[in-house]
C-alpha cells in the first residue's frame, strides 16, 4: 500500500523538481519536449508542461495527474511498478474537470495505523506465577488472560460463540482470577502469622459453652472489587442459652415475656439480632446493652405485676383454682381423704393439659383419673370381656 508519506514525499519531489526545472530550464516548448523525450526516471510520475501563464494552476493538476488513483483492493497482481509503467505508457492524462471521488479519498490524510503488537498471553509460560500476573480484582482483559474462552448464546447452526476479544459479556462477569486457589493459599499463609492456634482446652464443646456462653455472630462480605463495604456487614447476632443466666421463676417468666419470639423453646436459646446502627461495633454494643437491660429488668418486680389475672398466667395453678373447688363439691369428704393419690394425679393431668397443650394421650389420662374418682369403669375394663 502506498503510504501517505510516500505521496507527500512524491509531491514534494515533484514540487522541487518542477521548481528546479522552471528555474533552470525555462519554459520553452522545445526544452519541454527535450525533457520529455529524455524521460525523467527515478520514481517520478509523469507530468506535462503546460503553458506559462497557467503554471500555478496547473501545479495542482500536476499533483493530481501525477498520482494515478489506486484501487483499494489489495490485489496481488497490482503493484506500484505495474502502475508506474502503465502511467508512463500513456501520452496524455485526461483532465479531471470534475474532481472525482478517488481524488478526494486519496487527498484525505490517512491516519497512521499504529502497529498493534501480538497479545501478551502468547509469551506467557505455562508455569508462570499467576497471582503475580493478576494480583487484584480487575476487569477481564483478553490479551492478558491465556485462556481461549468463548461466551455468547448462538443459535445451533453455523456460528460459534464469540471469542474473548471484545466480548462484553466476559467483561461484565466479576471474575475471580485474582482469587485462584493458589492465590488464596498465599493470602492464608500471609495471615497465618497473625493467628494463634485454637487453645486445646476449648476443644470440648461443653467447656466452651460454659466458659463462653454468649455467641456473637457477624458476617463480612468481599466482592470482586477491592471494596469490602457491604451494608449487611453491620448485622450482629447474639445467642445465649437461658440456662447460663441466673433467673428465678418470676424473673424467667418476666424475661420470656419481655423477649417474646426471640426465645426458642426447643434449644433454650435467646437470639438477639441488631442492625439498627450503621457500624458493627455499635450494633454489638447495643446487643450487649440489651441483654444486660432485659436481665436486670426481669429481676425487678413492679407493683402492677401483682394484678396479673389467671388468664395471663404462664402456668396453670391447680391449687385454689375452680377445678379444685368443683372437685371438692363433687366428692364426699371421705372420698377426698382416701383418694389423695388420685386427686394428686388429677391435679397433674389437669395442669399438664393446660401447660403442655392438649393431646389425646393426656386427655385419656385425665379421663382415667376422673373415672377412678367417680368410680366408673375404665375403657380397658369394658373391652376386657370381649369374646
Amino acid at each position, binding site marked *: 500500500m502506498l503510504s501517505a508519506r510516500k505521496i507527500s514525499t512524491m509531491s514534494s519531489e515533484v514540487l522541487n523538481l518542477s521548481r528546479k526545472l522552471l528555474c533552470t530550464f525555462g519554459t520553452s516548448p522545445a526544452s519541454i519536449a527535450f525533457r520529455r523525450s529524455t524521460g525523467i526516471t527515478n520514481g517520478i510520475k509523469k507530468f506535462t508542461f503546460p503553458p506559462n501563464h497557467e503554471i500555478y494552476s496547473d501545479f495542482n493538476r500536476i499533483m493530481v495527474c501525477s498520482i494515478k488513483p489506486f484501487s483499494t483492493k489489495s490485489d496481488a497482481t497490482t503493484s506500484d511498478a505495474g502502475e508506474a509503467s502503465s502511467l508512463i505508457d500513456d501520452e496524455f492524462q485526461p483532465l479531471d474537470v470534475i474532481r472525482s471521488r478517488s481524488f478526494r479519498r486519496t487527498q484525505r490524510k490517512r491516519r497512521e495505523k499504529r502497529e498493534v503488537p501480538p497479545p501478551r498471553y502468547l509469551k506467557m509460560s505455562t508455569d508462570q506465577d499467576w497471582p503475580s500476573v493478576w494480583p487484584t480484582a480487575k476487569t477481564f482483559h483478553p490479551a492478558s488472560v491465556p485462556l481461549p474462552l468463548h461466551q455468547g448464546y448462538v443459535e445451533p447452526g453455523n456460528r460459534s460463540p464469540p471469542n474473548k476479544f471484545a466480548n462484553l459479556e466476559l467483561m461484565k462477569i466479576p471474575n475471580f482470577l485474582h482469587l485462584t486457589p493458589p492465590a488464596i493459599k498465599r493470602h492464608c499463609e500471609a495471615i497465618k502469622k497473625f493467628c494463634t492456634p485454637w487453645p486445646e482446652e476449648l476443644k470440648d464443646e461443653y467447656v466452651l459453652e460454659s466458659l463462653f456462653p454468649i455467641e456473637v455472630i457477624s458476617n463480612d462480605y468481599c466482592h470482586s472489587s477491592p471494596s469490602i463495604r457491604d451494608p449487611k456487614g453491620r448485622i450482629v447476632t447474639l445467642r445465649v442459652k437461658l440456662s447460663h443466666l441466673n433467673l428465678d421463676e418470676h424473673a424467667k417468666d418476666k424475661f420470656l415475656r419481655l423477649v417474646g419470639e426471640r426465645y426458642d423453646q426447643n434449644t433454650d436459646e435467646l437470639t438477639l439480632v441488631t442492625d439498627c446502627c450503621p457500624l458493627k461495633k455499635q450494633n454489638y454494643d447495643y446487643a450487649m446493652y440489651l441483654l444486660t437491660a432485659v436481665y436486670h429488668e426481669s429481676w425487678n418486680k413492679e407493683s402492677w405485676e401483682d394484678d396479673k389475672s389467671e388468664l395471663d398466667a404462664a402456668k396453670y395453678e391447680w391449687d385454689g383454682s375452680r377445678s379444685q373447688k368443683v372437685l371438692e363439691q363433687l366428692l364426699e369428704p371421705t372420698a377426698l381423704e382416701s383418694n389423695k393419690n388420685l386427686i394428686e394425679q388429677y391435679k397433674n393431668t*389437669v395442669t399438664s393439659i393446660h401447660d403442655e397443650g392438649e393431646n389425646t394421650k393426656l*386427655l*385419656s389420662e385425665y379421663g382415667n383419673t376422673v*373415672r377412678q374418682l*367417680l368410680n*366408673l369403669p375404665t*375403657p380397658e375394663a369394658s*373391652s376386657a*370381656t370381649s369374646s
Partner: protein
Amino acid sequence: MFRNFHFRAVKTFARPLNSKKSLKSENKLFCSSASVTSNSQESSGFFKASETNPVHLNEKHLGRFYSIDNDIYQKLYVQYHGFPLEYREQCKVFREQCVLVRKPYLDLKRCVDAMDLKKPVVRFVLHGADGSGKSMILGSMAHYGYTKEFILIHIPWIPLWTRYCKEIVPSTTREGFHDHTINAVQFLTNFKTQNAELLQKLNLVTSKEYQWSKREVTEQGSNLLAIVEHGISRPVHATECMYTLFKELKAQSSEEKCKTMVLADGVNGLFYDCKWIKGADRKMVPPSNLTAYEAMKDLFKTDWKGGVVIVTVDRIALDLEFRESTLPRYLLKKEGWELFDPFVPIEVTNYTAQEIQTTIDYYLERKWLQHPAASTEEGRLELEYLSTRNPRTLMELCNSR
C-alpha cells in the same frame, strides 16, 4: 357447618389418570329401592346382629350392626334431628335403621350402667375428628336411655340455636335476655313425642305454680306435660317453659322420682360469640344473654342427681377460625371447661379396619354399592383408603348423585 347433603353417584373404581374432578362427576346409577329387602329383623350375614334391645348389646356385637325398631325410631328420631340428616335419609332408602355397635358406645353404656344415680351427675364428653360418629353414638344412647326409661332431654344440634336460629325475640320475663321461639317450640314438641308416655306413667307433677303472664298460669301439681303443652301453644313463652321444665326435671331427678338423660350435640357452640344473633339495636347478642343458654347451662352443672349428661364437642359447630383442634379443652374454651370439669372424655375415632369392611358389607347387602368392583378386594381397599376410614367420608363416597 350445616349438614346439607344430597345423594351422589355410586362410587366408581380406578379413575383415569388426568381427570382431576372428584368422584361426584361420574356415573348416575341409582340403587333400586325395590330390590332392597325390607325385613330388618333378619340377621343376614355376620355383620348384622339380631339384637334390637340396646340394653343387651355387649362385646359380642362389637363391630356389627343392630337395628332399631321402626316405631321407636319414628318416635325418637324422625321429627327432630335425632340422628344426623344423612343417616335419616339413608334409613329411608334402606327401609331399616341399623347402627354400628362401636367401642365408645359400649364404653359409654357400661359407664352409664355403673353410675350411681344417687351421686351428682356425671358428664361425658364425646370428642373426635369430623364425621367420626359422635352424633351417631349420641343418638343411639337416646335409644338406650329410652329403653332404660330415662327421660330424654335431647338437644340435637346446638348451633341451630346460636347460629341458624330462626327467630329471636326479646324476653318478656327477663331483662336484657332473648328468647328463641321456633326452636324452643320444636324442641318441646319433640320432647313431648319422646317422653309423653313416660311422663304420664311416672306422673311427674310441678312443684309450684308458674305464671307465664297475667292470665296464663300453670298450677302447682299439674303434670309436667302441661308446661310442655303451654310452651308449644305459646311460642313467646316457649323458652321460659324450657327453662322451667329443666329445673323441674332436675329437682325431680334429685328426689329420685325419675331419671333424666341429657343429650346435647355440639355443646361447644354455646361458649362462642353468636355472630348471627342480633338484638333489636342491631348489636351482637352474647350467648350469656340468651335464655336458652341459661337453661342449658344449668343442665350441665353438677348440682343435681339422678341423671347423666352426655355431650359432644364438635369443631364443626364453630366458625372456620376456631377449628384448630378437635380436643375438648380447646373447643370448650375456659368457660366451658370450668363448667364441665371434671368430666369423662370419650374419644370417638375413625373406623377400624374391621368396622369399615363391615360397613361396606352392609352397603353391599343393601345393594347400595352397585359397581361390580365394589365387592372386590381392590375396591374395598380403595374405599378404605380414600375415606381414610372416616365414617362420613365413606358415606359421602358411597352416596349417589
